[in-house]
């Protein structure tokens, strides 16, 4: 079934929409949630909350591409759950990814109290635009999808050591970019 047909089912308020959505995008949604939350019970809850969120959002929304929309909702819900219960869910892939970013972005004095949320959003998208496609792939897979380095290396036909070194360089570039934008001092 195409995404357009699935969205059509949501508009018809047919419960079959959830079944078809799960069939087509369920594994991607669960992967995003699992990487952040690190355990099956929380993942399952998050996937169900995501489908409820989609049910409430379509209509009126008619998202394109559907998978990106669904994964984004899953990620937002998973990160909310992660931050509300961090002690219980240490050692997830997201935890490791945050450790890596925190290590670089905590250097120096932060001016986060002074900047506005919108500026941060603009800055991260501006930074991604400066990266070549390969580096952007590595950054997104590690820090947005929270994939393990080993999996990323397989996807990029590279070695874990090489991906680790390249991610280190990208994090350093991010720090310099945010400093230049006045968001880190």
């Amino acid at each position, binding site marked *: 079934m195409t995404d357009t047909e699935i969205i059509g089912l949501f508009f018809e308020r047919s419960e079959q929409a959830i079944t078809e959505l799960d069939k087509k995008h369920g594994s991607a949604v669960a992967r995003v949630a699992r990487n952040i939350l690190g355990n099956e019970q929380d993942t399952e809850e998050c996937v169900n909350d995501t489908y409820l969120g989609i049910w409430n959002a379509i209509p009126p929304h008619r998202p394109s591409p559907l*998978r*990106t929309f669904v994964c984004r909702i899953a990620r937002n819900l998973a990160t909310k759950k992660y931050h509300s219960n961090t002690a219980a869910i240490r050692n997830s892939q997201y935890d490791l990814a945050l450790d890596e970013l925190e290590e670089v972005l905590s250097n120096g004095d932060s001016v986060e109290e002074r900047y506005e949320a919108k500026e941060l959003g603009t800055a*991260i998208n501006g930074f991604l635009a400066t990266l*070549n496609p390969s*580096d*952007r*792939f590595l950054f997104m897979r590690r820090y947005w999808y929270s994939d393990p380095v080993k999996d990323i290396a397989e996807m990029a036909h*590279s*070695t874990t050591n090489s991906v680790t070194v390249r991610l280190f360089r990208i994090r350093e570039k991010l720090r310099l970019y945010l400093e230049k934008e006045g968001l880190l001092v």
Partner: protein
Amino acid sequence: MKRETITFMLNSIGDEYIGETEVFRPYSVQGSPERTDHMKKRRIITLLLAAVLMLALGITAYAVWNIHTERQQQLKSDLKIEENNVTSYTEYDVPEEQEGGLVLLSSVNDGQVQHVYVNISPVTKEEAARFPADGSFAWSIAGTEIGGFAAPQLPVELSLSGEEAIRDAVMENAYDEESQTMTLQCYIDVKFLEKAAAELGTEAVPLQVHLIAGENTARSFGPVSLSLTEKQSRHFDFGHAVYHDEELDKDIEIVGLELTPFSAVWKVRYEGAAAFHTPEADWEAYQPWSMLEDKVCIEAKLVFPDGSAFSTSGAMTCPYEDGVVKLNCAWGSAINIEDVQKIILGDLVLWENK
């Protein structure tokens, strides 16, 4: 920056980047009007040849032959083979009467990877449409454990976002419904190819390509005989050129550059380099050196006779070997390596054609 703030920042990333990175696509190069003109000329020649062959062959055989030759010419144009006098390129003879199976189109050796372009058929429309969500492609060398990744070949100027867009582009550009043919690129590490040749005791190795569609469909095509395409390279020796970075107050010795039409290996030396390129490296101490390595790859310029300049961009890998750090860079379309007139980094002239 607090962890919550970092999460907020990551949650603000745009849909285009989320969709773009669902699947690995290493090269994305913009097309040019020059390329379009070139394609038009190629198409006219192909049409003339087609008219002759349609008389000699049946229509089905013609459709298959046509898709092989058309794809060959598209690839040659996309890779900028002719205008940049690339010799590390092989164009294979297209069989006139073979109606299915695996057909070698062309290949380029970028120094580290041999990119082998092939057609496989028959591939049904349903099987083709399963990529990338539920289908994949792979290559292997028969009689060995050596194998790797293959992907549908798309025009390099395409910029795609999302699985559906990728599938649509594959169906439009890499798949030909009439002849049920899919065009693929096999990424074959040159070392793997040499290892397979040594294991089998032959120069040419039997290449197979595999289609995996869903849980129940897996088919193999070939084998066909594949040899290593000769590498084309130019070596620049910079003696003991030293670049001093004032901001970081550090010196880096740029030993040389190994250039191919599709890749570059910058060779650099600096204090403590060996220790930084191990898994146990002190990342904090490595930071400034990493920035300097990037500077060499990104800010150094290869200058051509018309005054245009080319940057090799950031390194994909940076192993420490033979007493130097090798910064491996790669790009999509060829450059003319014999045309390089000057290599500069800031005010430092590393090499000049005198």
